[in-house]
């Protein structure tokens, strides 16, 4: 039988529902895998072995009694360590929060538990989910960054420590580490997943992200945690879509719009070649492919995004920063200090330009269903002092539109490459249909040499 720690979300859920595998067996297999690899990868802040096993026994007993269980019953999940967990330390990767223990669960944690998921613990984040690198290593090559800020979540899922983990994305913090670690990363529409109980970087730009190893698994997790939340006024009021059904009805080849200009200029040769090969394969499988041009306001996107992020991060951190400035890492310190001196009228102009970009996004979808770019300009850098380049992911966080990265091969150095699919706001079902179709057409699963 396949080793339990290698199974995906859908496989675990199905085996547990059919009583072919016990949640205790699955959780134990993942905990053993974590114990074996953690000294090398440093993906976890807290492994909550005792509570995870207690939850697994509880789930097992419920199934044995014939009780109805949720769609994620028995599925191990990790949580980025900026997500509140009642009674479990939530450090945000910071010395300032080193001993912080929340008194309540974030909404996403409540919903995961209601769906039957087994919370294994807290995964490593960069400091307050920004740019100072974490100690986590890339499971494909420990000399390379796993990306960030959801470093531990991406490395853990890539290393088969567990099938799913939550991250977050303000710039590129879910899709980039997912691509660097060879897994699937999803960032839905802004407001689709509640941010209540998630330590912010930037209120206007923050999204909860999902790291898994298949499109179907992303849909399953999103279906479990998405939806309106009275605790978070930014959540979308609409009912969530039928995401898993969308994945099951992915028979029609999508019309793909390849974004070149900026993305061609800034991608390295190997990444460009990989995207060309990927798009050619998809076209041969039946996808219609055409090139799409970026709208005029794109020239302001990266600058406006960085300004908004700096100002809002400064606003969140001001009080702590004034009293504990020496506890902050160099890059976050720089972010906060710059945010404190950006004029308020310029911040507001950046917000107005963000709205302009959002209004211009539909132009790009006139003749296509989905946009395509490389997920990152290059594979994971061989440099543990950086988390990589966010410029290919942050425009879509800026706009708040849903995106997903899928693996598309390995570089000559043996590192994962990925491609990013982008849909209009609110169109997660369209994104899932296209992503599943592409996933099936390419049939690429990357397994690190561990």
């Amino acid at each position, binding site marked *: 039988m396949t080793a339990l720690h290698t199974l995906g979300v859908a496989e675990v859920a199905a085996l547990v529902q059919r009583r072919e595998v016990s949640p205790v067996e699955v959780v134990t297999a993942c905990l053993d895998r974590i114990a074996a690899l953690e000294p090398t990868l440093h993906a976890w802040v807290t492994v909550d072995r005792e509570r995870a096993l207690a939850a697994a026994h509880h789930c097992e007993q419920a199934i044995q009694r014939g009780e109805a269980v949720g769609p994620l019953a028995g599925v191990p999940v990790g949580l980025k360590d900026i997500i509140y967990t009642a009674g479990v330390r939530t450090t945000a990767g910071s010395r300032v929060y080193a001993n912080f223990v929340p008194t309540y669960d974030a909404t996403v944690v409540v919903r995961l538990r209601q769906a039957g998921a087994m919370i294994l613990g807290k995964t490593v984040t960069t400091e307050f989910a920004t740019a100072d690198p974490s100690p986590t290593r890339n499971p494909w090559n420990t000399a390379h960054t796993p990306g960030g800020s959801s470093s531990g979540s991406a490395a853990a899922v890539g290393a088969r420590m567990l099938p799913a983990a939550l991250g977050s994305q303000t710039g590129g913090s879910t899709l980039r580490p997912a691509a660097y670690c060879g897994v699937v990363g999803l960032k839905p529409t802004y407001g689709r997943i509640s941010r209540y109980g998630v330590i912010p970087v930037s209120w206007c730009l923050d999204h909860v992200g999902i790291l898994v190893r298949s499109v179907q698994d992303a849909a399953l997790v999103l279906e479990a945690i998405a939806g309106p939340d009275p605790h978070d006024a930014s959540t979308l009021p609409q009912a969530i879509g039928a995401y898993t059904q969308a994945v099951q009805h992915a028979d029609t080849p999508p019309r793909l719009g390849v974004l070149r200009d900026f993305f061609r200029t800034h991608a390295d040769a190997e990444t460009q070649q990989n995207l060309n090969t990927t798009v050619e394969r998809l076209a041969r499988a039946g996808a219609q492919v055409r090139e799409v041009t970026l709208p005029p306001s794109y020239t302001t996107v990266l600058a*406006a995004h960085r300004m908004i992020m*700096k100002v809002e991060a400064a606003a969140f951190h001001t009080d702590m920063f004034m009293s504990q400035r020496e506890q902050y890492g160099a890059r976050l310190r720089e972010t906060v*200090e710059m945010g*404190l001196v*950006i*004029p308020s009228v310029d911040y507001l102009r950046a917000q107005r330009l963000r709205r302009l970009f959002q209004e211009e996004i539909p132009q790009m979808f006139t003749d296509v269903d989905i946009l395509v770019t490389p997920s990152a300009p290059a594979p994971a850098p061989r440099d543990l002092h950086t988390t990589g380049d966010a410029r290919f992911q942050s425009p879509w966080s800026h706009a708040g539109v849903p995106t997903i990265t899928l693996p598309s091969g390995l570089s000559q150095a043996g590192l994962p490459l990925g491609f990013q699919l982008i849909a209009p706001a*609110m169109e997660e079902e369209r994104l899932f249909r296209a992503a599943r179709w592409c996933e099936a057409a390419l049939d690429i699963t990357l397994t690190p040499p561990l």
Partner: protein
Amino acid sequence: MAAERTTADIRTTLTEQTRVLWGDADVERQAAALAQTAEEIAVVTQATVAADLEPAFFARP
């Protein structure tokens, strides 16, 4: 008024504010960040924005 500011003007203003807040040593340490932030502000302030375009903040994308 905003469009008339050059990147150098913006950088000077940011630098003086940083000096007041954190001192000379910090200005030196943050020189690259100040230059980058000034360039970002210049891009944003030099872009055309319609008078009736309001910011969206948490509005639905």
